């Protein structure tokens, strides 16, 4: 076949490989697809029915949001997944900058993770927007370059494009058992690395400079976002690696990768915890800003929203536990234990970077009203659907990516490098 080496063949390869699989693979994909369709149904036919179908019922009123708390569950998880996406490229950076062969092997999985995380990010914005179709046309037509939202949209879509290119090129070379060319890698890294930091920084900038929301008014917000991103992102990748090793025959990753990544995860968690301490000090020690004080009280003690306090202390508790476990030699020498610590970190960062980031800014609101926000079933349903879509995309992309990795690195009979 003459055109075996073409890009078109690579795309075909990805599609064919994504659609091939065991019974278990099909079941998982079908389950995720069902959840996605359910979420889409809830969004189009119920929550956004007045916009899409012109009905009198429905609308964002079905969510727990109101004029006091205008952003809720969707934006909360948006913040978390931007972080996970940002950390996706961390592996590629580690792999190519330090030229580590074991890291190079799995670098593409970081890109796949970023692609699916960014899908979740963009979908969460879409379901949250009152009029998404208008936004599609007007964001490019009437950009306001003083609005951080526009910049966030620009960096997120560019970063998505970068990761799509990265994953495609990697699969393109690996599937034909070729190493990635330096000509591609160097410029790719130079462009991708600042964007990885950039997406989360700009996301933090959306909120950090708003005088109306004192608890966000901290120059530490963006660094804190990035720090915990570098805890949760690689932790999710470790869990994915662990599962891939279990379920894909012949796929194995050296424990060195696990250990080194765990150090990064633990280090980032320590920095994150340290930032939390620093913010807590600033708020509780000297602050004279009464609204900030009141918002921080909701965050740490939760007099009106107990779940905020639970999540905050869950972050601190699990974060400290994960760091201690990661430092003990007996636990950081087994892949299972490392996967478990990673799970702790992911839960801790979800606790730290979803509702606890967004909701305290509105409780009390800028005019002093406390109107407790509790997500409604429709919000949970749509959020679940969006996550199912992200996971489905991960599944469909990781499969051909791992297949390509195995073609290049795990040759039958040969010793892999």
């Amino acid at each position, binding site marked *: 076949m003459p055109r075996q080496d073409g890009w078109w063949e690579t795309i075909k390869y990805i599609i064919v490989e994504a659609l091939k699989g065991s019974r278990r693979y099909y079941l998982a994909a079908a389950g995720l697809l069902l959840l996605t369709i359910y979420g889409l149904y809830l969004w189009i036919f119920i929550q956004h029915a*007045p*916009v899409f179908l012109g*009905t*009198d*019922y*429905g*609308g*964002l*009123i079905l969510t727990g*949001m*109101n*004029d*006091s708390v*205008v*952003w809720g569950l969707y934006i909360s998880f948006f913040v978390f997944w931007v972080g996970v996406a940002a950390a996706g490229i961390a592996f590629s950076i580690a792999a190519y900058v330090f030229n580590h062969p074991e890291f190079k092997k799995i670098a593409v999985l970081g890109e796949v993770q970023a692609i699916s995380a960014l899908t979740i990010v963009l979908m969460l914005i879409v379901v*949250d*927007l*009152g*009029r*998404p179709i*208008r*936004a599609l046309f*007007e*964001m490019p*037509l*009437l*950009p*306001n370059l*003083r*609005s*951080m*939202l*526009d910049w966030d*949209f620009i960096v997120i879509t560019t970063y998505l494009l970068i990761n799509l290119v990265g994953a495609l090129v990697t699969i393109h070379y690996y599937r034909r058992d070729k190493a990635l060319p330096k000509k591609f890698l160097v410029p790719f890294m130079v462009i991708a690395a600042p964007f990885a930091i950039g997406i989360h920084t700009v996301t933090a900038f*959306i*909120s950090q400079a*708003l*005088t*109306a*929301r004192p608890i966000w008014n901290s120059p530490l917000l963006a660094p804190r976002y990035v720090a915990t991103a570098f805890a949760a992102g690689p932790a999710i990748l470790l869990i994915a690696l662990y599962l891939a090793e279990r379920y894909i025959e012949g796929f194995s990753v050296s424990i060195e990768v696990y250990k080194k990544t765990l150090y990064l995860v633990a280090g980032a968690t320590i920095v994150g915890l340290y930032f939390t301490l620093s913010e807590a000090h600033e708020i509780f020690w000297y602050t004279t800003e*009464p*609204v900030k004080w*009141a918002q921080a009280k909701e965050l740490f003690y939760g007099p009106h929203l107990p779940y905020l306090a639970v999540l905050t202390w869950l972050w601190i508790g699990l974060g400290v536990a994960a760091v201690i476990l990661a430092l003990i030699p007996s636990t950081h020498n087994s892949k299972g234990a490392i996967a478990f610590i990673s799970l702790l970190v992911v839960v801790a960062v979800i606790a730290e970077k979803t509702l606890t980031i967004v909701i305290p*800014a509105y409780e*009390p*609101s*800028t*005019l*002093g*009203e406390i109107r407790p926000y509790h997500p409604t079933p429709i919000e949970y349903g749509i959020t679940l659907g969006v996550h199912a879509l992200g996971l489905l995309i991960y599944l469909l992309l990781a499969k051909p990516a791992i297949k390509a990795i195995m073609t290049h690195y795990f040759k039958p009979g040969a010793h892999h490098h």
Partner: protein
Amino acid sequence: MSVGPRREGSGNGSPKVDESRRNLLKAMAVGAGAAALTSVAAVDKEKFKKALRKVSIEDLLGVPADVEAGSTLEMRAKKKEKELKEWCRKEAEKICQERGDASEDCKLARQKCDLITVKATPAKKGVRYAMALDVNKCIGCRRCVYACVMENNQARNLGIEWIRVLELDRMEFQDLLGSEWYYGNEAPKKENVYVPIACMHCENPPCVMVCPVKATWKEPDGIVVVDYDVCIGCRYCATACPYGARRFNWAKPYVPVQELNPNMHILGNVPRQVHVMEKCTWCIQRTRDGGVPACVEACPVGARVFGDLNDPNSPIRRIAEEYGLFVLKPEAGTKPRFFYFFGPSRTPPREEAKSEGKEVKENA
């Protein structure tokens, strides 16, 4: 000059151009035919048309062309007016079928539909609006809120109110924490002070800065407006506003047509759509035509003052000179153009009045 029978869409602006042109032609055809050719029964219509030169309605009415044709907002307003009339008539017919043609609701609804005009009045040059509120006078009766709801066609089903009246402790009032929003009908209480808050029409509005699609902006006369046809409903402006002034249509807004205020401005009180942001516009449909906002008019104690800051004779200037103007949350750096002041005629507390032997009316 009368240009044929005016049917619909006439309002205060020009009638719809095509239709009027047709009417004009008809009128001219009839007039010319009657005067010159009484004996000739039929005129070759096509030839006749060729001999005529097209006349635009703008020329006829003597309206400056740049105002009428140049502004897209004006054109949008006209389109909106037509749509709204159609929608309103449909709604009115529903009411009439339900309650009978003779019912009061039916008559009112039909009347409102005929009266609908959507304006796009631009800002007057050199005008800088401002409003001030006398904290000593405000009795927390919320009449301004109700007047605002009626004037600005706010959704009745969503409880949207542009003005929020905060009840605060008179002695311990330092910040807005602990403010009571839903204080019932017992106001005014002597231990409380009442602070109505709506859009401050800031000089430096954070909501305008953050809007990702430029759906909200500050007009030259100082009014911060929202374009309901551009808003994408991201609610970033509501997050950025330090005064909680912005209201979102969380569901499809509903206003009964018999309660509709037919005097509308495209950037003001035209009925909103679902999932768009709205806020106080200082009654742009009134003030741009020289009136005062509905809240100023409705206030029973005259606590509100509205005027042009640039006009040395305006009431707002008098207040500024006599009592001084204060802003809420100066630390936000937004430079509000809505001010508070402490006027002279403060009602003495009841106890004090009693001890002086004066009659005090209950629930005054």
